[in-house]
């Protein structure tokens, strides 16, 4: 059996990220399962000039953009759903500190699928005929911008269609609900584009809310949409998507969503946010203390908690995860 891949968050970021890389995450919806805590750690380690590949903006991209760590981004949706505009990203785009290339929410997974399959391009029947095709922030002088979404001829009908450029990000940090110590992962809720991203990225780091014994994985192999063979490392981090939600685990933290987005509206607010909510904790325990026990309990009392029931008996206690992580790291 392959060795366990449990790794600390800090070590995963040290080992698998670098300045200027193409970094993908956010293969979840803006208020859902995203590896937000991985973005916090990228900031703690002062990574910069990141080229962000985010199917949708999330609080992670909002933070990376607001703090100036991401300077290029490719996205479908760039807001925060009912929480409104993403102030950090918005400020970075309006000031020119971040160049944002727009696609749609179908274009992004199609481009990831193209990367996953090693296709030269992906036929596009959406995004064509609009300014998503004609305008490019990466090639601003080009109009219509055919280096972004080219026009090609369908060899069977002769019809003019579009061609999407496939994506193969250097690294994907993918949030999942459950993973075993090897990285076999189960996602509760919509997987959005985490399946395609896990195959398109050159390297995948799994960030899991909980670690389960492999017996759980063997009980539900049909639900394991990310198998360990595509995974480099597994980071155990409860409430990793906070303040966003993780179906089955915890609800969206409405108050902190607003606090965070409010802070990211200004550079002073962002600095203060980074001091208080990014640089302030040392480990998982102090991260959870920062959120606060009372709030964690409230968020954990989610209406979707029943979704986790079939898996509960396999959840590994934190101490057991720590022991296995130590084993993995000393190998």
């Amino acid at each position, binding site marked *: 059996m392959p060795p366990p891949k449990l790794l600390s968050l800090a070590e995963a970021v040290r080992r698998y990220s670098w300045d200027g890389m193409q970094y993908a995450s956010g293969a*979840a*919806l803006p*208020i*859902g*399962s995203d590896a937000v805590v991985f973005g916090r750690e990228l900031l703690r380690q002062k990574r910069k000039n990141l080229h962000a590949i985010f199917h*949708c903006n999330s609080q992670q991209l909002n933070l990376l953009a607001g703090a100036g760590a991401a300077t290029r981004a490719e996205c*479908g*949706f*760039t*807001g*925060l*759903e*009912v929480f409104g*505009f993403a102030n950090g990203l*918005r400020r970075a*785009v*309006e000031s*020119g500190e971040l*160049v*944002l290339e*727009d696609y*749609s*929410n*179908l*274009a*992004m*997974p199609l481009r990831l*699928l193209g990367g996953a399959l090693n296709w030269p391009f992906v036929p596009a*029947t*959406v*995004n*064509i*005929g*609009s*300014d*998503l095709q004609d*305008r*490019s*922030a990466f090639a*601003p*002088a080009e*109009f219509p911008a055919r280096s972004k979404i080219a026009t090609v001829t369908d060899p069977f009908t002769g*019809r*003019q*269609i579009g061609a999407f450029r496939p994506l193969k990000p250097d690294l994907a940090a993918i949030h999942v609900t459950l993973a075993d110590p090897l990285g076999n992962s189960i996602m*509760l*809720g*919509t*997987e*959005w584009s985490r*399946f*395609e991203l896990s195959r398109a990225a050159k390297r995948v780091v799994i960030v899991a809310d909980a670690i389960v014994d492999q017996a759980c994985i063997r009980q539900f192999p049909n639900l394991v949409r990310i198998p360990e063979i595509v995974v480099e490392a597994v980071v155990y981090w409860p409430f990793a998507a906070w303040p*966003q*939600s993780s*179906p089955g685990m915890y609800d*969206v933290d*409405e108050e902190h969503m607003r606090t965070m987005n409010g802070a990211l509206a200004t550079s002073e607010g962002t600095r203060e946010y980074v001091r208080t909510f990014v640089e302030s904790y040392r480990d998982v325990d102090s991260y959870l203390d920062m959120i606060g026990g009372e709030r964690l309990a409230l968020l954990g009392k989610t*209406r*979707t908690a029943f*979704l986790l029931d079939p898996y509960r008996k396999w959840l590994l206690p934190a101490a057991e995860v720590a022991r296995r992580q130590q084993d993995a790291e000393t190998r």
Partner: protein
Amino acid sequence: MSPTATSAYTRQEMMAIATGREIHDGELAIFGVGLSMLAGFFAQANHAPNLRAMTEGGVYGSTPVGGLPWGIECNRISTNATSFTSGLDALGCLVGSGRCDVGIIGAAQVDKYGNVNTTGIWDGDIGDAYRAPKTRLTGAGGANDIACGAKRFLIMVAHERKRFVEKVTYISSPGYLEGGNARARYGFAGGGPSAIVTTLGVLRPAPETNEFQLDAWFAFSSIEEILANTGWPLKVSAHAHVVPEPTAAELAHLRKVDETGALRRQ
């Protein structure tokens, strides 16, 4: 906006109900997050019990509980689903493919051919070279895919002059482009916008030209008010009429879906 003297419902509620009336029983339908979700699920609760509703996240078979969901992964919409799949599945296999009957999208700006801008607000034209907008908005999201792929789609938008422009600065989601049969150039699977439902009335495309014209006003609005709040010389259909007010049953169904009162807040 507040409930008018002659009615006990808000303009936003009327907009949601008028939008919902465009949705028919048995259809395959996709709703964006926010007000369009309330309009769609109102239709399901009120007159379309066999509606096959979905969100772009591939969340199927669910109905919101506890009020307007904060987003697609919110517990309010993820708690009673019958299937969770993916964006590629919902927006690709079911919408981009041409299978979906109807979608509902929102707009920051809409023009006389039903083209929608949700990307940004620029000072004047963008010009030959692309430049960042003065005010960045939320981007296209799944609306572009719905506008290209759904058999028809509805646009829900507050009726304000700044939003109703002759030509949008940036087309995030295509309506009828330059009008007529311009969409045919791209062979979209979908047919285009069938109505723009606003806080004041309903606009529909004219035959041949596909230019949107005033089809109906609400009991609390008027042709004059709508013309004054539209940024192009809006034509009035020969059959323009007043939209029937919400029935008590409709209001009750809407307010059950809109438990937290998102449409009643001003």
